[in-house]
Each structure stands twice: as structure tokens, then as C-alpha cells.
């Protein structure tokens, strides 16, 4: 019941935030922050009691009571659909990341929202609730429900508070994910139909569907349905074109949530559903997926280098970083998977910070075009220093979270496909190229004459505090990542036994 309460807190919090706009235009954001902190404390207090968390023993996928928390209530018995939430290592990590980034997103949009604050904070909270649902739902119907429902508030975030052509970007974002979601729906229902044929009764529960015997090419088609839905969301190489538009047009909080959390739902889906449900089909398909991953890394990096828009560059850097996750998942051994999970966490922080900087730049200069803003370090040294730190984080400086993730992925992948790893490690070089170009074009170089007139205020204490949280998080992830690795280990160790026999145990 804990998990259902968690989502309810956020949903009701959203309603309260929407209504609280009547009090004054600043209360909604305080309400939102309060709600998220409340949810975080509630979860932590519930979890601290669990002994299974301290011994960190692995949670075998097909036996529910080995999971940290498991909740099941029947919903539509006619189809064996039940409201089933469960929390294990991986989803715990993602839930914590979502709540932390949610708080950061609220603080990121502290001042740059001018109209309808209540409704904005409400949408923010509802998106977070939807994402939490995705991370915790273990009934495929319920998972699909949250998968689609989290889009609506996110759509409103972009469509109402976005920038110049927000309509196009919001529409593209929604259609891309929803259309691919339809493929996943058909795949899920086909899987359930196969299950019903062999087992005689309907069931949508992940635990039952886990090892349904099916013909090889049906498994292949179903896996493809799931794969496309998750790679569109990831975003993988050919399906990523919605991300740059969505990011450039979204408000700061919107892009922080979008980059920090929503992209991770795709990665989570790959690890949780695509490979364990169809192990041998995933093995056959792994070569294609790996090439897509590498293509994503290189393509994202090259395009990031070519951009003149600050946010668009950071968006393409996310495409490049997400390529690593695709590699990590489909190399499917312990090292690569740990790398993928670590990348999900580390990338969340580094991109959220970069988007916050982009947002504050847009707030101050009313433009995202880098040609219009060079040499900002002089007028805004604190923001420059923060930007430098996070640029270094995103290019994978060892000692910070991203490096640990990328190195583990490369290490894991090397045992599966050495030549592809060499290609993927090109991503390290191209990553450095666009990151430093970002720094050069915006913060270094001769100060832009047009900017002389504006008095540019540097980072305030609130912004610095938020940035400090992310700096500490990345440093801790870089220096002492073991707690995160152990929590993820609970899921990965057991899912590997279910998944295809990776090259390394």
C-alpha cells in the first residue's frame, strides 16, 4: 500500500498546488516542493524498516515476495488485470532519482514561470506521479496506463509554458511516444493471448508472463514491439528526432524532468520488460541494437557539435549519452548493466544541471542562440564555474559519475563485441569535442558587444544550493558509487539469470 500512497500523495499534491494559486502566485511552488519532500520522506521512512534492503539479497524476478515491497489488488478480473506495484533495487533507484530531480525541477522553475503557476506545478507533480507509476507498475496493463498517462501533463508543460513554436514540439513529442506506445500495447496483448493459449486463463502480471513459452518468430515480433516503444522514449538513434524539439521548446522545469526522468523510463523498460520477457529473441536482436546504440552515440555527438542553440546542443548530448545505455542493456552482462543503471542516474544529474543553466541563461538573455552570448564568464563567474563543472561531468571526466558509467558499459561491451566497443569509445572523443565547444561558445571568448547594455545577475543562493546538490551527487557517484551499485545489483544479478547467457557471469 506504500507505493499506492506515494503516487496518491503526488496526485493530491498536484490538486492542492493547482488550488493554492488562489492564495498567491508564489504558494504553488512552495506547495510543490513540500509535497515532493513529503513523498521522499514517506518513502525513506517506509524503506528504512525493511530488513531485505540492508542485506541487499537479490530479488528474483519471478517470485514476488522476494521484492522489497509488493502490492497487488484485483482491478479487472475478466482479463486478469490487477493493480500491482512492486519495488526492487532498480526501481528503488529510479524512484529516488525521480523525487530528487523533481525537487530540483521545482527549484529550477522558481522564477521563470510568469502565468498560471498553480496549474504549472500541478502538471509537474502529475508528471512525476505518472513516472513513479511507470517505475513501480508490474502489471503490463497498469504499466501501459502510466506509460501513456504521464505524457499528458508533460504535453501540457511543453504546450502551455513552452517557448516560441511549442505547439509543434509538444505535438511531435506526444505523437512519437503515443504511436510507439500503441505498438507496445499490441505486443502486450499478443503476449497475453499467447499466455492464455498456453495457460488457459488471462493474466497481465509480470510474474506470470515472465516465462511464457512461444514460437521463435512470434517472440521476435513481440520483442520488436516493446523495443521500438522503449527506444523511441530512450531516445535511440533513428527515433530520436522528437527530443531536440521537445527540449528547446520546453520550459526549464519541463526539460529537467524530460531529460532527467522521462528518458530513463525508456531505459528502465528495456531492462525490465524487453529482454527478460523475450530472452532468446533479445539475444538474436542484440547486434542490431548494439549498432543502433553506437550510431546513436556518434550521431548525437556530431550533431551536438553542429548546433548553435544551447539547449539543442545539450539535447543532442543526451541522445549521445543514451546511446551508452542501449549498449549497456544489450551487452547484457553484469558490468554493462551496472554501467547502464549508473549512466541513468549520473546522466539524470548532469543533464538536469546543464538544462538549469540553459534555463537561467534564457531567463537572463532571452535567447538560446550561442552566437549571441560569448564571454559570459566575466559577467557571471559563478554560473561559468558551474557550467564548466557540469560540462566536464558530461564529457566523462573520471572522478565523476558519468565516467564510472561509461567505463563500465565499455568494459561490459568489450567482452561481447570488441570492435563495436572501439567504435563506441570514439564517443569519448566526440563527447569532449562538443562539450568543450559548448563552453567556448557561451562562456569563454571575447564578451559579446550586444550584451554590454544588459546587467547580468549571477547565480543567486537558491540556484547555487540546487547546483550544489547535483555537484555533490555527481562527485559521490564518481568517487564512491558502491551503494548505488549494490542496490542495482539486487535486480541485475537475478535478471541476468533470466536474461540471455551474457559472455561474462
Amino acid at each position: 500500500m506504500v507505493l499506492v500512497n506515494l503516487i496518491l500523495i503526488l496526485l493530491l499534491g498536484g490538486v492542492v498546488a493547482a488550488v493554492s494559486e488562489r492564495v498567491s502566485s508564489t504558494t504553488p511552488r512552495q506547495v510543490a516542493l513540500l509535497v515532493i519532500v513529503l513523498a521522499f520522506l514517506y518513502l525513506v521512512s517506509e524503506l528504512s524498516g525493511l530488513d531485505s534492503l540492508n542485506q541487499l539479497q537479490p530479488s528474483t524476478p519471478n517470485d514476488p515476495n522476494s521484492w522489497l515491497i509488493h502490492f497487488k489488488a484485483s482491478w479487472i478480473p475478466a482479463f486478469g488485470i490487477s493493480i500491482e506495484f512492486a519495488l526492487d533495487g532498480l526501481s528503488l533507484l529510479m524512484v529516488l532519482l525521480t523525487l530528487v530531480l523533481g525537487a530540483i525541477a521545482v527549484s529550477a522553475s522558481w522564477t521563470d514561470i510568469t502565468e498560471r503557476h498553480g496549474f504549472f506545478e500541478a502538471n509537474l507533480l502529475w508528471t512525476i506521479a505518472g513516472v513513479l507509476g511507470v517505475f513501480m507498475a508490474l502489471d503490463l496493463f497498469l504499466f501501459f496506463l502510466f506509460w501513456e498517462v504521464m505524457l499528458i501533463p508533460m504535453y501540457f508543460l511543453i504546450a502551455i509554458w513552452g517557448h516560441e513554436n511549442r505547439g509543434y514540439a509538444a505535438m511531435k513529442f506526444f505523437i512519437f511516444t503515443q504511436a510507439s506506445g500503441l505498438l507496445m500495447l499490441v505486443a502486450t496483448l499478443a503476449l497475453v493471448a499467447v499466455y492464455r493459449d498456453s495457460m488457459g486463463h488471462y493474466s497481465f502480471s509480470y510474474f506470470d508472463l515472465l516465462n511464457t513459452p512461444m514460437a521463435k518468430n512470434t517472440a521476435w515480433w513481440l520483442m520488436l514491439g516493446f523495443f521500438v516503444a522503449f527506444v523511441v522514449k530512450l531516445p535511440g538513434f533513428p527515433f530520436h528526432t522528437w527530443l531536440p524539439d521537445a527540449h528547446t521548446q520546453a520550459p526549464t522545469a519541463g526539460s529537467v524532468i524530460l531529460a532527467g526522468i522521462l528518458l530513463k523510463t525508456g531505459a528502465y523498460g528495456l531492462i525490465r520488460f524487453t529482454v527478460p520477457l523475450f530472452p532468446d529473441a533479445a539475444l538474436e536482436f542484440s547486434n542490431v541494437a548494439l549498432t543502433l546504440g553506437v550510431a546513436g552515440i556518434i550521431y548525437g555527438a556530431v550533431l551536438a557539435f553542429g548546433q548553435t542553440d544551447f539547449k539543442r546542443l545539450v539535447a543532442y548530448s543526451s541522445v549521445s549519452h543514451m546511446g551508452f545505455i542501449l549498449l549497456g542493456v544489450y551487452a547484457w552482462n553484469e558490468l554493462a548493466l551496472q554501467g547502464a543503471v549508473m549512466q541513468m542516474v549520473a546522466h539524470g544529474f548532469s543533464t538536469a544541471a546543464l538544462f538549469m543553466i540553459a534555463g537561467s541563461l534564457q531567463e537572463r538573455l532571452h535567447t538560446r542562440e550561442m552566437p549571441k552570448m560569448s564571454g559570459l564568464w566575466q559577467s557571471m563567474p559563478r554560473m561559468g564555474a558551474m557550467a564548466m563543472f557540469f560540462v566536464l561531468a558530461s564529457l566523462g571526466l573520471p572522478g565523476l559519475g558519468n565516467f564510472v558509467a561509461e567505463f563500465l558499459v565499455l568494459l561490459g561491451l568489450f567482452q561481447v563485441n570488441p570492435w563495436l566497443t572501439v567504435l563506441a569509445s570514439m564517443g569519448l572523443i566526440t563527447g569532449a569535442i562538443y562539450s568543450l565547444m559548448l563552453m567556448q561558445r557561451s562562456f569563454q571568448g571575447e564578451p559579446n558587444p550586444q550584451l554590454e547594455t544588459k546587467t547580468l545577475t549571477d547565480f543567486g543562493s537558491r540556484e547555487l544550493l540546487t547546483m550544489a546538490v547535483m555537484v555533490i551527487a555527481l562527485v559521490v557517484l564518481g568517487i564512491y558509487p558502491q551503494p548505488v551499485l549494490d542496490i542495482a545489483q539486487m535486480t541485475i544479478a537475478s535478471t541476468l539469470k533470466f536474461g540471455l547467457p551474457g559472455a561474462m557471469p
Partner: protein
Amino acid sequence: MTLSKLIALAPILILSITIIVLVLHASLKRDHKSAWYVSALGLLITIWGSYYASGYAQQVTVLLKVDNWGLLFSALIVVSTLTTLAISRDVFLAEGNRKEEYYLLILLSTLGAIVLCQSSHIVSLLLGMELMGIAVYAMIAFPEEDALPLEASIKYLILSACASAMLLFGFALLYAATGDLSYAGIGSKVASAYESNPMLVVAGTAMVLSGIGFKLSLVPFHMWTPDVYEGAPTPVTNFLATVSKGAMFVALTRLFLDGKFYQFPSLIVALTLISVASMLVGNLLALRQENVKRLLAYSSIAHFGYLLMVIVGFSSLKETGEILNLGRDALTFYLAAYILSTLAAIAVVANVVGEKTAHIEAFTGLFWKQPLQAAALMVAMLSFAGIPLTAGFMGKFYLITLGLDAGLWLLLSGLIIGSAIGIYYYLRLIFAMSSPLGDPSVVPSKHSLSWRDALAFVLLLSVLYMGSWPQPFIDFAGV
């Protein structure tokens, strides 16, 4: 006609009594408000009647087959008529004094629809369809001073007259081939008739399905829909979209199942083509449509394309009882979901726009002017698009399950492509509603909660309820 048969006909009898009372009332005192109340009361009693009659389900004379499924849809039709009544309350206040006829026409048309729902014989089908149809021509042309309704009405009259002629000619051929006019009779004899002279049977069924296809606005016969939906006054559009199409589809299912039409491969291929064409053309036509009523017309074409998938599904299910029920459940759910969503959508259109042209500009910033109406329209749109937590999604869920079991790969891909295109124009409307009003400072003024908001809220709740907690409806409908 034993007493139990009479009770079985309860909804039809109650409605006829209401009509008679209405006529007597009109002759005594011409008062618009009391006429409205009489008809509303009559309809409510009819709903109770159809619930009461469900205990006495049986074949009443050769013409009508009263079963729970038919009664469920009769109740749904009466609910739709009630909503039509609700939104047409003030539409005609400024009209001349002859308003009671309008309510008379609505009740007569609903009576026709209920007869059509429960028909099991060609005569009762014909009777029900024509009673419903002819009443609608007059309803469309009711407001005198406007030119568009007149044009829409004449178009609808001529086209549906042709369609009825086609239908009749088809039935004539079928009658010539099988010698029986009741569905069951045709069903039993059609196989042997197919051996003797296949030409007759096939041509007959083809013409029957074309006639019905017109009424359901399937693709080759869909041209009239946008003009009639736009021309007719909003309540009548609502009536047309929900009652006339809903009843017709139920009749088609009965004819198809009892008449055993699913044996003929030619029919199945033709229906598949029509279905796919409707899905794609319906969605494509609505892509950049500015007028909301025409947009809803095209969307209904697409939705009936999806629904036809169930009929095609029957063909490959043959006699396996278990999946036949799945097909019937899918049909019931999807049709109910479609009707509910259309009611919600058109109710909001009526509340917001009334009789002015329902251009998309009228809906910009609706979220900030009338939040409740906007929420209802949004939920309706999401239900059409098939987003979870709405009735539409459950309908689509059923359809896909059926499609997978029956292996209708072409139709499934049509469904996916159609709904992918469909998201665009549903979202366009939502985007228009959410675009800011220009002056962001105005906090939505809390105007009094009028009955219109109550109606919109009720419909919104019902669409969400059916989508998020479908189990009770499945038990009730899984008859």
C-alpha cells in the same frame, strides 16, 4: 400475446404511451416547458422499463427478439436521447411557438431506434429504420430561419432514401433466394440458397450491406456525414451520431450473426476493404479540419471503420463459442464507449458554441474561460484517441485483443496507423483549448455552476469511470 410478452415489449409500449400523452397534451395546451418535462419523464420510465423487461427476454412474435443485449442498447439509446433533450432545451427558445412537434419527432425517432435494435425480421428492421429516418429529416430542418439545416436535410433525405431503396432491393433478392424474411429463417436457408443460385444471394447481401453502410457512414457511402453534421442543429447532430448509428450497428450485428452472413468470403473481403478505407480516410479527412462538428463527423467515420473490424472478426471466429462472446463484448464495449464520448463531446460543443459555427477559434483558451467544459471535451478527445483511463482505451483494448485472436493483421495495422494519425487532430483541439488567452492575469472567474457544467461533469465522469473501472460494465454487458 401473453402478459410476459407484453412486459417484454415494455420499453416500446411505454415510449408509445408517452408519445400519445404528448400529442394529447399538445392539443390541450401548447406549452414548451411542460412538453419537455413529459418527454423527459417518459424517457426515464422507458429506461426503467427496459431494465424491468430484461427478466422476460424472449422472441416476441416473429418481428422482435427481446434479449438483454438489445435492451442494454435500448437503454443506451434512451440515455442518448435524454442528453439530446438536455442540450436542446434552450436551443429553440427563441423559435416560433410550434415547438412541441420537435419533442414528438425525437420520441418517434427513438421509438424507431428501439424497434430497430430489437428487430429480428426484415419488416421490423424496415419499420424501425424508416420511422427513425423520416423523423430525423424533419428534426434536421426544424430551425426555419437558417439556410444550412434545410440543405442538410434535403441532402440527407434523398441520400438515405436511395440507401433504403438499395437495402430493400437487396432484401428482395435475398427473399427471392431464400423465401424467408426473418433473420433466423434466412440464416438457415442461405447456405442451401447459395448452392442453387449464388448470384442472387451474393448480390442481395452486397446491396443490403451497402444500404446499411450508408447509415453507418462507411467509406464509399460516407460523403453525406460532414455536411449533415455541420448543417443540422447541434442536438440533432448528437442524435444522429449516437442513436441512429448505434441502433443501425446493432441491427447490422443481429442480421450478420443470425443471418449467418459470415460464411461468404466475398463479403468478408469487401468488409475488410471498407473497414480499412474508413479508418484511413476518416482520420485523413479530419487532419486539418477547422470546424469541430465536421471534425467529429470524420472521426465517427473512422470509429465505425474500427467497429467494422468486429464484424469482420466474426467471420474468422466461425462457431467457436468462446471467442464469439469476446467479439460481442468488444462490440458492446466499443460502441458504448463511442456513444458516451460523442455525447460528452457534442454536449460541450452545444454548451460552448450553441448554434454558431463551431469553428476551432471559438474553443481557444477554453481551459481558462470554462475549465469544466474544457476538461469534459479533453476527456472526450482523449477517449477518441484511446488514451488509457478513458472508455475509448478500453474499447481499443478489446478491439486489439479480438484482432489478435482472429488474426486480422491488415485491420490491426490499419487501426494503429489510423489512431497514430488520429492523435494529431484530437491534440490540435486540446492545444487550441490550452493556448493562453492573451491576458494571463485573468484568474478564471468562478461563475455559477450552471446545469450545463453539471451535464458536462456527469458525462466526463462516466467516460472516465467506464475507462478506469470497466469491470461492472463488463459483467452487466457480458450477457
